[in-house]
């Protein structure tokens, strides 16, 4: 018996589509608004300011140690909301499926999405599915958009970063990027490499609650391009210079070893469960203590400061007392051997 796969019929809008929705999507992603199957979701009685974001997810392989495309699609959008100080409220889910994609794999992805939604208390309230002919997409592409609440007095933006602010990284660098890269044929590495995909909204909520109002200036999640590229954006947007310490950067030993083997730098690898917190210098120790008390931030470290200097520049101080400039990533990181 051949395995059941996604057919072009599943995207037809007809009975096959309805069956997919009722047998698979509603089975796992049930919420009263989604169940109504209207053309759009109505969100009643929403107070105040809303944050709104969207992101698309394409990853090969779909399933990897520490996560899968479903978890990424929920966590990534929640984190984008959290980085503006928003409390996530709900998500949309758009799926582009390749004809021939095994339904069992699709089910695994949907279950994973449901788990992440339940765990974060963020339901899927509207969605869409399209099927494209085999070869026109790679298995499954996901888009999620998210809406969150932002309190009236919250103003978090990288342009708010000020001279003297400290920069705290919530945990180790490069775990996601190296995990994905070393799954590829040709450059595979075995071992304890795990994606760090995780939602950060709780960490952000605790920080905002525990620290004096206005002391958190900016929050950024260093996804593609890594910490190096995100720091460059903060330096650029704030018109300041950033100085970080090589020795302060948290990197897991196995990530470091894989980077040494493949000629990569953890500073340039993607993270999916980390944030950079720019906080008033006098609140840095308090922020670090709060972050370290959470599961998401237990390995947090102060990695540097904003200083006066050439606007937009990021400098790293090396253990021997030297210094160099940290440039943003150009193109994708490639393993090198020579």
């Amino acid at each position, binding site marked *: 018996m051949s395995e059941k796969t996604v057919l072009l019929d599943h995207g037809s809008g007809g009975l096959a589509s309805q069956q997919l929705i009722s047998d698979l999507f509603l089975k796992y992603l049930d919420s009263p608004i989604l169940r109504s199957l209207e053309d759009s979701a109505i969100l009643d009685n929403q107070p105040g300011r809303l944050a709104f974001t969207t992101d698309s997810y394409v990853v090969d392989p779909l399933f990897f140690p520490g996560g899968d495309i479903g978890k990424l699609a929920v966590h990534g959008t929640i984190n984008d909301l959290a980085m503006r100080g928003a409390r996530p409220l709900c998500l949309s889910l758009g799926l582009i499926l390749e004809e021939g994609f095994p339904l069992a794999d699709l089910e695994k992805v949907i279950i994973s999405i449901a788990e992440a939604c339940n765990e974060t208390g963020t339901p899927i309230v509207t969605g869409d599915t399209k099927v494209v002919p085999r070869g026109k997409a790679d298995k499954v592409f996901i888009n999620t958009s998210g809406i969150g609440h932002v309190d009236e007095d919250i103003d978090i933006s990288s342009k708010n970063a000020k001279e003297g602010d400290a920069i705290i990284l919530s945990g180790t660098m490069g775990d996601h990027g190296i995990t994905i890269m070393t799954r590829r*044929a*040709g*450059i595979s590495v075995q071992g304890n490499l795990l994606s760090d995909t995780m939602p950060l909204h709780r960490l952000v909520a605790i920080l905002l609650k525990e620290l004096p109002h206005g002391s958190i200036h900016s929050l950024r999640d260093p996804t593609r391009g890594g910490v190096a590229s995100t720091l460059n954006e903060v330096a650029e947007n704030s018109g300041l210079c950033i100085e970080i310490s090589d*020795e302060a950067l948290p990197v897991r*030993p196995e990530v*470091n*070893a894989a980077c*040494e083997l*493949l*000629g990569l730098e953890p500073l340039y690898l993607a993270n999916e469960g980390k944030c950079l917190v720019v906080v008033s210098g006098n609140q840095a120790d308090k922020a670090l203590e709060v972050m370290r008390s959470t599961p998401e931030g237990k390995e947090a470290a102060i990695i540097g400061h904003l200083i006066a200097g*050439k606007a937009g*520049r990021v*400098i*790293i*101080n*090396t*253990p*021997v*007392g*030297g*210094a*160099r*400039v940290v*440039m943003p990533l*150009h*193109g994708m990181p*490639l*393993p*090198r*051997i*020579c």
Partner: protein
Amino acid sequence: MKYVDEYRDSTLAKPLVDELQRAVTKPLRVMEVCGSHTMAIFRNGLRTILPEGMELVSGPGCPVCVTSASHMDAFIAMADQPGVRVTIFGDLFRVPGTHTSLAIASSRGAKVDIVYSPMDALDLAEKNPGELVIFLGVGFETTTPGIAATILAAKNRNISNFVVFSTQKLMPPPMIALLSDPALKIDGLLCPGHVSSIIGAGAWEPLAKDYNLACVVGGFETADLLKSLILLAKQVGSEEIKVENVYPRAVAWEGNARACKMVDEIFKPTDMDWRGLGNIPLSGLKIRSKYSSFDAEQRLDIDLPKAEEPKGCMCGEILKGLSTPNECPLFDTRCTPANPIGPCMVSSEGTCAAYHKYGRDL
């Protein structure tokens, strides 16, 4: 990592920095031959703490940088052929040929796979029997033995759809060619560590003897680099010129005979084009006729046209250590890592890329 972290220990490195300050008693120019040395020096920020009077210039030891545009053009032409899959080290992906690159060929539909080892390329050939899998061989003495072993494995495993295009290069011939140029003024050579693992620290003796050049074979971690520079400064100061090996954990004086024998079985010396340096007699390796069925040049009809060096690009002078990237009119203007013109900008260990990434004024 054991045998790495100890050598990065800042409590070890800081006194060595002071020692280096004292060791430099007169002005000296040192060439670091190896691209990985260039990268490691920049990564450590060593250039910002060098003693006054000590100057570091980068030599021709980045294999991607010295791959000629005509070889790149040939690689791209092969990748464009139907039924072909080319396999490369990641560094080669964005290297420009005369008009285009493998990255652009890939976007047009060419099959280009990045591998960690030539052995991974052989596995790809075994898995895809309907395709001709070409491994684009670049690199120096360190990389060539593994490529030789892969060719032998292809023969033993009867994999007939695997071929290698060899642009393998040897390190001593271009060094001798460079040193014969009176314009090049260097006092010491930081000899490439892992090339020396294969050919031995003793292979540099002719350079020390015939050209009165201080030679130190060094490793790649902070303490290795500092110790190497200290010894180079001391040699130049004392005028007692010789080859010293401060990387004995990876380099034996006599090298790796087993690897050399493997190379000799598969390859023979040939004249080779170097980007920026031109054709250097017997500075390259080609596959012996006994293994011609694994030689891409023999299996495919490959035309190696004369390629033009990009106008205004100073990669040639930079590779010779006669100019620094800052002196090139294209550097950081028209030529950037996102849009490289010369090969020194393409490879992350290329001199220009290293200057761009780490060497901007602070």
